[in-house]
């Protein structure tokens, strides 16, 4: 609890900004959903044949998990991609259903004699709608807006996965750092926001159904003023992004967050250009797509990952060849691969440090001799991958008495340290290697393909800002595996703040 409050206190500027982004996402998407949903509801309330299929489609849309929805929208031009725009589109789609539904219900719930009285008094359809139908349906419509806004507060946390910002950033950051405090730092304000929105709109709904027109008019004006004020304040808080800023992206795990922050600070310090951080994007393909469309300008990719996952080329183990292939493929698609940062985040075959020292183990060949009385534990992915366990066993002649235990990657580090297994395949730069005193055996037969961490940037952006290229190249060869491990350790094990870690590293290397 104290940790949570001190986290908020130390991150209050960022918290305010993320909170502002969150409010803006929800308020903006809800307003648009009202602007689209109410007319749509009015339209379909008068055409029952249209209403049912429309509601069916809307219900189906509603059942698509929001993360999947973000995924669908990634390749769509104009509305898709990463960032707040795509998030708004998704949130609007989710908000439409309840609003359309309650608009229809509100209009259909009006007593036929009231409507008939209006028509018989000589109201035109428009007059009937504005003076009778809408005022009477308003409490029902507001109920729909309430549902839309509350659902929006929840869905907006997921929007952080595509770099839209908001309180979800803390949740994702906390998940990747396995740090409950950070998760709560985002989840608690989001829940509070949902409760406040729910309460406020419920109050409004009750005011409106009290049938006191003069009072409800005053209420409506009050609410409109409050909403406008909140939106303006949050825009001010969220409007950090200067136009023409360099947008730095990253994937959604600790090392990538550190590297993203590192790039951002290096650019800010060396070029003075404004930087917009779109860290925590949901994976390799999202980053690649974002770089392609210009939603981000630069991020750190691993050569082996680019080769197989981005360009679908066969696995190769020769580091120089892989780098050249990937650089050429990037160049053909308008991206520039800069020289590697200096560490290879490959698979690391790990043993306990104490064992390595006592038995004098240095290479995987050394370990192969011991394998007959060892137990191995691997993550799910390593067992399946073309560059995973089967090839490794063949290359080094590993012969374990039992088939390897398949376990969660993060758990396997602890299982090794605790002596439950004797050999695992981890990430070469994992902070836990240092934290748990593990030892990485040398891949002396060069079985694993290279995963050299390398900055990739949009060629157009580099052309426009020559000083940007210089700033990024200054990092080439400067981040060793030990450096990266230490920074991951600081973030994952010591729970230190990523911007601070990056700042200290840059200060040391200048």
């Amino acid at each position, binding site marked *: 609890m104290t940790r949570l409050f001190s986290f908020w206190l130390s991150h209050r500027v960022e918290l305010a900004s993320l909170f502002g982004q969150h409010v803006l996402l929800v308020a903006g998407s809800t307003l648009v959903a009202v602007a689209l949903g109410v007319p749509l509801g009015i339209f379909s309330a008068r055409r029952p044949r249209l209403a049912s299929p429309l509601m069916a489609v809307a219900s189906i849309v509603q059942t698509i998990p929001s993360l999947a929805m973000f995924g669908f929208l990634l390749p769509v031009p104009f509305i898709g991609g990463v960032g707040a725009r795509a998030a708004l589109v998704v949130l609007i789609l989710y908000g439409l259903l309840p609003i359309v539904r309650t608009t229809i219900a509100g209009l259909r719930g009006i007593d036929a004699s009231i409507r*008939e*009285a209006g028509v018989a008094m*000589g109201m035109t359809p428009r007059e009937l709608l504005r003076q009778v139908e809408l005022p009477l349906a308003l409490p029902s419509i507001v109920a729909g807006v309430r549902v839309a806004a509350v659902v929006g507060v929840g869905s907006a946390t997921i929007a952080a996965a595509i770099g839209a910002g908001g309180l979800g950033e803390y949740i994702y950051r906390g998940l990747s750092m396995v740090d409950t405090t950070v998760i709560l730092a985002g989840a608690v304000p989001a829940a509070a926001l949902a409760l406040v929105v729910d309460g406020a709109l419920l109050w409004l709904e009750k005011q409106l159904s009290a049938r006191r027109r003069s009072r409800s008019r005053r209420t409506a004006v009050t609410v409109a003023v409050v909403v406008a004020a909140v939106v303006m304040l949050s825009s001010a808080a969220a409007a950090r992004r200067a136009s023409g800023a360099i947008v730095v992206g990253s994937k959604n795990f600790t090392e990538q967050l550190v590297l993203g922050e590192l790039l951002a600070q290096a650019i800010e310090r060396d070029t003075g250009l404004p930087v917009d951080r779109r860290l925590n994007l949901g994976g390799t393909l999202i980053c690649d797509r974002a770089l392609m469309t210009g939603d981000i300008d630069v991020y750190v990719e691993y050569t082996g990952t680019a080769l197989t996952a981005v360009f679908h080329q066969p696995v190769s183990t020769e580091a120089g060849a892989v780098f050249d292939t990937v650089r050429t493929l990037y160049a053909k698609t308008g991206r520039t691969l800069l020289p590697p940062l200096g560490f290879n985040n490959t698979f690391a075959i790990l043993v306990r440090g104490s064992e390595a020292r006592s038995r004098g183990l240095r290479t995987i060949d050394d370990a192969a001799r011991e394998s007959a009385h060892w137990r191995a534990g691997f993550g799910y992915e390593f067992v399946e991958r073309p560059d995973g366990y089967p090839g490794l066993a063949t290359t080094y002649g590993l012969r374990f008495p039992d088939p390897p235990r398949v376990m969660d990657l993060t758990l396997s580090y602890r299982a090794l340290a605790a002596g439950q297994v004797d050999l695992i395949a981890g990430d070469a730069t994992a902070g836990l290697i240092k934290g748990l005193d593990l030892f990485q055996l040398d891949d002396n037969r060069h079985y694993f393909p290279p995963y050299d961490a390398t900055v990739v940037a949009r060629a157009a952006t580099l052309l426009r800002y020559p000083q940007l290229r210089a700033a990024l190249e200054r990092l080439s060869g400067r981040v060793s595996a030990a450096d990266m491990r230490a920074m991951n350790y600081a973030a994952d094990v010591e729970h230190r703040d990523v911007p601070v870690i990056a700042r200290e590293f840059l200060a040391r290397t200048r």
Partner: protein
Amino acid sequence: MAVPAIEFRGVSFARLGRPRILDHFSLTVESGEVLALVGRSGAGKSTLLKLVNRLLLPDEGAVFVEGRDTREWEPIRLRRRVGYVLQDVGLFPHMSVADNVAVVPRLEGWAADRIAPRVHELLELVGLPAQEFATRWPDELSGGQRQRVGVARALAVDPPVLLMDEPFGALDPLTRAELHGEFRRIQSRLRKTVIIVTHDMGEAFALADRVGVLEDGRLIACDRPDVVAASHEPLVRQLLDALPAIPRPSDVVQAFRPADHGGPEGPHYSRKPSLSPRRGSGQAGERPPE
């Protein structure tokens, strides 16, 4: 002779896929006349009213309002010249009494300083002191008061024609009798052309200059109340006998306090055809005491 206020000329009307509600129906209502249409539920009474203000158009024949075919009337103009009072009143629940009465004047674009005195005048006319009632809400009114507001609202822009669809049907007998009195008082001042639809023969006789009896989409009788009450036309007689009666207020009172007390509304008000305001040879309708 002047153009009749409302004229049905050979009007037929059917809801889609249903038997005809009206079949070559003809009727003339003179200006300033109160016509009551009596008939059982489903006889086509409400349909008749909706044909007048063009909520419906006839399949065959034509309806003329002030000498003009409703098809030629611009519907909005027509409806604002024809006041309409519904059984369930249809007051707008989100508007105050004053705002309800002011709806049509506002639609007509009256200035605010003309609307306010008019609303005041109308509320006084229907017996609801404006001071007390103007700012109330429909759900704070009794059924009778709501019906009065409904009448005031229908009269707001002084339309020459008033259509009333079972206007007092949902009220208790005492309130109903009271409103009948009010109606006669107002009508004696305003001389509107009125069509009242009702299933209560007593009400028809209490209010109307002429009573029409509607059965299967045809008018089987249409004349002064006393003539209709004396009719020997078997269908009319049958209908008269079958029509629901409400106990005469005096009967109710007498049940508790015998003999010495008459009903508040006196002789206008009655069960079945036994009494009518202008009853002449009404004896034929009298039942032997039971």
